């Protein structure tokens, strides 16, 4: 004991040693690189291959984009300015901008009309897409189709006005009769709307389009990206109600209704859109009354709407099938009749489940509107392949034009799919 006290202890730790930083290769960017890019032989090879790929892509495209010429009147002039350097000739975009966006026949002095319609479209879509906005804005959304029709096609304001009055009358009748019986309200509304439209149509003078505030533009003069947007928006908004009806019809207990819906859906889903567009361009005219001329735009809208309605119906059917049986039984036990049960209990839930699917169909449909170029409508792709590439000034400017078209579609479609993901998170009320 004694000598222990005499021998001084060589070392006593008097406090905790401060923690030393982790080794350099275990922290920060080095660790991240090691773990994520170079964690093994295969991974290293993959990383190097990716880097080479990115390098090659950038090396070939960057100078091309950077040297781009934005002001020239023809490809030859572009090449002169570039003087042998590689570079894009974006001048085609600035020079042919109106053609790319509005088509080559839309009157120059009327470009403000589609522009205004586009801005108003954003306003009209806002309350549909973001439901935190005041509900009163939906009134404008309901008015928008008539305003947009008048702005884009021009002509007499009486035409959209009569259509609007017909819808208002139908709505009023539905409110009145529909309280007691959905069917009575529904069919009453259709009859009233038809009556109003027929009377109104007779009242509109033949020469209403002459001297109208906005000059009338025939449908065949529409073109460019505007046509894609119009087809996409019209067909999606028309096909959602039709798709709901088809999905409900397919679930119906009435065999006749059910089989009509099944055959319609399976038939449309079994054929490519191109064949349906052929129907619109060469065959549908045979089914309209003789002497009537239904313009190509309307025929195409009819066929594309039927096409996307069939796909949307299948998406909604999935949503309906995903609802537990108890929801239907609960609605029945509350004494709700079929329209009430559907409107108040089933559809709100089923549609919520189907939103991602419906957005997928909408994106697909928007991309498919480029197919109308095959039946010689001059949408964006049609304009590029037709009038612009065939012109002597711009013959050979492929990449700038196709890249521009690709970029436009990418921005819109990617935007829509991002919105759908946001909406899905927003609507997720369960705890997953």
């Amino acid at each position, binding site marked *: 004991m004694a000598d222990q006290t005499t021998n001084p202890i060589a070392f006593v730790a008097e406090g905790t040693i401060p923690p030393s930083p982790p080794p350099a290769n275990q922290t920060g960017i080095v660790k991240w690189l090691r773990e994520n*890019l170079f964690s093994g032989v295969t991974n290293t090879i*993959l990383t190097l291959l990716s880097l080479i790929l990115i390098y090659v892509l950038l090396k070939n495209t960057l100078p091309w984009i950077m040297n781009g010429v934005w002001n020239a009147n023809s490809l030859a002039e572009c090449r002169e300015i570039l003087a042998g350097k590689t570079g894009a000739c974006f001048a085609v975009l600035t020079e042919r901008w109106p053609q790319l966006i509005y088509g080559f026949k839309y009157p120059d002095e009327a470009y403000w009309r589609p522009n205004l319609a586009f801005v108003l479209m954003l306003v009209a879509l806002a309350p549909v897409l973001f439901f935190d906005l005041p509900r009163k804005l939906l009134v404008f959304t309901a008015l928008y189709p008539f305003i947009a029709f008048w702005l884009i096609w021009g002509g007499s304001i009486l035409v959209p006005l009569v259509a609007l009055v017909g819808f208002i009358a139908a709505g009023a009748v539905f409110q009145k009769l529909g309280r007691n019986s959905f069917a009575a309200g529904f069919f009453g509304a259709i009859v009233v709307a038809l009556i109003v439209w027929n009377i109104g149509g007779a009242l509109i003078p033949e020469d209403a389009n002459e001297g109208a505030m906005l000059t009338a533009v025939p449908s065949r003069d529409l073109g460019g990206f505007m046509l894609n947007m119009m087809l996409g928006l019209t067909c999606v908004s028309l096909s959602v109600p039709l798709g709901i009806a088809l999905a409900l019809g397919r679930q119906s207990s009435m065999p006749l209704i059910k089989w009509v819906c099944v055959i319609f859906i399976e038939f449309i889903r079994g054929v490519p859109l191109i064949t349906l567009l052929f129907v619109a361009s060469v065959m549908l005219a*045979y089914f309209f009354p*003789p002497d009537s001329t239904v313009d190509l735009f309307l025929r195409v809208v009819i066929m594309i709407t039927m096409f996307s309605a069939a796909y949307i119906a299948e998406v909604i059917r999935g949503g309906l099938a995903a609802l537990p049986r108890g929801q239907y039984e609960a609605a029945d036990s509350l004494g709700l009749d079929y329209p009430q049960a559907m409107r108040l209990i089933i559809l709100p839930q089923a549609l919520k489940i189907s939103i991602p699917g419906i957005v997928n169909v909408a994106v697909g449909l928007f991309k498919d509107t*480029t197919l109308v170029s095959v039946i010689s409508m001059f949408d964006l792709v049609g304009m590029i392949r037709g009038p612009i590439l065939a012109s002597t000034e711009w013959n050979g400017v492929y990449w700038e034009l*196709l890249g521009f*078209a*690709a970029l436009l579609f990418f921005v819109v*479609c990617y935007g829509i799919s991002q919105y759908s993901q946001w909406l899905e998170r927003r609507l997720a009320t369960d705890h997953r």
Partner: protein
Amino acid sequence: MSTMTDPPKADFRLSMLINDTRYRSLTFQVIAAIAIALSIWYLGNNLIQNLRAAGLNISYTFLGDPSGYDINQRLIEYDSQSSHGRAAVVGILNTLLVAFLACITATVFGVIAGVLRLSNNWLVSKLMAVYVEIFRNIPVLIWIIIIFTIMTAVLPGPRAFRGDNPTSSMLFDLFAFTNRGVYIPGPHFSSGFFSAAFLNWLLVIAVLIGSWFASREVEKRATLQQEQTGQRPKTGLVKLGVWLVPVALLMVLMGLTWDVPELKGFNFSGGIKIGGPLIALWFALSIYTGAFIAENVRAGIQAISKGQTEAAAALGLRPGRIMNLVILPQALRVIIPPLISQYLNITKNSSLAIAVGYADITATLGGITLNQTGRAIECVLLLMLFYLTASLLISMAMNVYNASVKLKER
């Protein structure tokens, strides 16, 4: 006191047709039937009147008339004297050819991209995400046109291969990429057992199927031996032999030679020519659909719970075997149904061939034949019938598969 009463046995009143659930569905169906019949009558009447006004009738005899146009890309004998019907058959075969090729390559692209998107490698997974997003969000028609433009505007013409100092040269002296199409060496039997070339190829396929059965037999024996002795014999070499030897022998016996494309005059001759439109369509459909398949594959793999991977790792399996033996067999059940509907999409999207002039059924029957004969209704109906049959067959295959892999539950 309440008394039980029988339900009222009221006489049938007209209002019961709409208010009584027993009769209501009947009423509605009768109304629907009348509405459908009326609209069919209306449309049919319009059709008949319009046809009479145009002096047309519905008849399919035009299918037997000489077509008068040529088709470059064809799998069977055809010339401008052949009938419109034969042109349609050429078109059908071309549709099936491009759909078949695109299905295979799209699956390859899709599986690679889908698996790599889940890779631990940050760069690779981001790169694959970019690929998927770019290709999914741009219309396939634009992709077809872009690749077709590469084929026709970027690749050199055959003239560039000529002269003493050619600006372009053939790859390995075997493949020629020109703006008129890609030329590859074609296999050719100099002493085939049959005079018709396709019978010889059938023989080759038959031998390959035989090899498949034989190699399965080898596997079975190996498993049997493993169960008895606990040792699994090495079967790799034996299987390789079973696959290669019979085919190689057959090839030698039939005198396989390669017909290499050569520059003759102003164009290449010999070998197999794959036209630019076919390549554009094939490749565009593959990369476009590949992006969708990649998402299906990713979703399928992610649907398998992480516990499966961990359990397999706990058993001591290596990552490759975990994927092959544990994850993929389960993921396939999730992946295959959407995969088959992607195949359906490829078949339907192949109708875009008309945009680049590939002679598929839409371009022959729905394009040139329709324009030459003016038989719009007949042509479009036949076209729809073909696609409808194809899609019904594919969905039937899907249903059979779904039934076979369904989880056997109580």
